[in-house]
């Protein structure tokens, strides 16, 4: 039932989820989804609320253990422990921001570097040269990332004091700190105004240019279709369609899934064509709430 349009995939597959199924007691949130992300690619995952996107996301990041199927990263099957998944090279952000509120911006990013450093308790106590070098390197790397997301001047502010947009950026910087091969973004532009959304777009492009593959869940269609090389649509836990942005855009099942099927039994006259044209137009333009005109 899934139409697989063969797209020319350039890079090697980074993430391969095969037949991932997640059942909570009777309810099957995700039913046998196959999914791949290649290196240097931006892939979007869309679908109406309750389609199982975040559950699928959690299976990828080891927060849930999928009832069936496996998730492998660069060929090796991922252990079901979140911290080992991050060590393997997949970093993630959260739908509602989960920063370390009472740690400074710099410390948040330093925690992100946890998997890439190995100084344990003993080296902390002995404070040998190795420790000092590692700390200095971590701090430099962290400052680079903060520079990258434009938060360098706020290194000593508490994370909880940052405005919403900057907290999102910090979360991305923190995720990048673990030198991931794949970055998973869970609705990065939720609650953002257009300027911030555009800034995030540039940021994601910049990340991709650093050679990091990106998988993002998003409702802002224009953002998704501008950004993503490939888009997959999840409905009721199943993968409906996968392909390039314009293929998925025009697929009427996706439109139906979002806007509901057009009302049958309407007299076949010109009025009906107008309605469909309007629908098609609105389908292409963003279905998100903010219509461009009345900007706050």
């Amino acid at each position, binding site marked *: 039932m899934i139409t697989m349009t063969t797209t020319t995939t350039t890079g090697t597959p980074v993430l391969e989820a095969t037949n991932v199924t997640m059942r909570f007691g009777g309810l099957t949130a995700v039913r046998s989804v196959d999914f791949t992300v290649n290196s240097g690619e931006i892939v979007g995952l869309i679908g109406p609320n309750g389609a199982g996107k*975040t559950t699928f*996301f959690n299976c990828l*990041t080891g*927060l849930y253990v999928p009832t069936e199927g496996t998730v492998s990263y660069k060929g090796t099957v991922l252990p079901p422990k979140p911290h080992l998944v991050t060590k393997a090279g997949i970093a993630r952000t959260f*739908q509602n921001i989960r920063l370390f509120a009472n740690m400074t911006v710099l410390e948040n990013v330093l925690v992100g570097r946890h998997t890439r450093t190995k100084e344990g308790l003993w080296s902390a106590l002995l404070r040998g040269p190795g420790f000092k070098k590692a700390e200095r390197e971590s701090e430099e790397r962290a400052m680079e990332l903060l520079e990258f997301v434009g938060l360098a001047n706020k290194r000593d502010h508490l994370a909880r004091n940052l405005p919403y947009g900057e907290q999102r950026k910090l979360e991305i910087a923190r995720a990048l700190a673990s030198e991931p091969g794949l970055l998973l973004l869970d609705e990065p532009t939720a609650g953002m105004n257009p300027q911030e959304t555009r800034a995030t777009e540039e940021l994601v492009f910049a990340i991709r240019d650093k050679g990091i593959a990106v998988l993002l869940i998003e409702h802002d269609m224009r953002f998704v279709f501008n950004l993503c090389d490939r888009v997959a649509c999840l409905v009721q836990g199943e993968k409906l369609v996968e392909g390039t942005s314009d293929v998925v855009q025009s697929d009427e099942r996706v439109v139906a899934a979002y806007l509901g099927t057009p009302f049958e039994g309407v007299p076949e006259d010109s009025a009906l064509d107008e309605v469909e044209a309007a629908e098609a137009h609105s389908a292409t333009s963003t279905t998100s709430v903010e219509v461009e005109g009345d900007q706050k």
Partner: protein
Amino acid sequence: MNTLPQQLANGLLLGSMYGLIAIGYTMVYGIVQLINFAHGEIFMTGAFGALTVYFYILPDGTPMAVAVPLMLIGGGIVAILIAVGAERFAYRPLRGAPRLAPLITAIGLSLALQEVVRNFYPGADRARAFPGLDATHDLGSITIKDADIFLIVSAVVCMAALAYFVRKSRTGRAMQATAQDPDTAQLMGIDTNRIIVIAFAIGGFFAAVAAVAYGLKYGNVDYRMGFLMGLKAFTAAVLGGIGNIYGAMLGGLVLGIAETLASAYIDEIPGMQQLGGQSWANVWAFCLLIIVLLVRPQGLLGERVADRA
């Protein structure tokens, strides 16, 4: 002569007393996530409230049938006043404070309540005699006192009333809502402060019932009776699944029976002769708690709180 039935009866009695006190811990924890270490002392003040009614208010020689209900009311009023007072003046100002601050206040409060009773209640520096219901009855190989019957009956009646109240009444539902999510409950127009006061009051009353049953059964009360009983009741509340009222009573019964059987029969297990007896009983009670929590981290009846990403 097989002592198992008697020992089971002993365990059941001890357990129901733990259960009645544990209700107070569970209700307060369920609503405000506070371990009210002073609850043991609220149990103790309930006992002294009942003692005051019997010795200083009722004329001497009033029949127990009349005295016991009045003692329940007297003890109940004192325990409720102190519980609500504690919430109002010691815990409420700390609502926004770090989670550990009310814990230290509770420890200070329990020390203060013990010392207030010891210093200012006449003759309280030593155990005070409490009127007893000592008529015994033999049911097969089990000997039961009137006080034991009073304990069992009051435990069952109170549990039934509480279950009805929480499930059926309007305030009961409001209480469940506040336990689940206080902020949303407030949005629904529930005055959460009133609900919290009610939770403390119910906990206080149940402790008073347990206190009167304690006095009638053991025949005396003293200012330190709340400390160890409170610790055991808190263990029972956690064993049953902290926050769940049925869990509190079940946890109490399980703990009481386990403790009694342990101190009675552990030394018959080969190799553990020396480890029997009452002095080791608390160790086995805590071991049981730890094993249960390892198998079911949310306690016997607690429900698993999934942490959605």
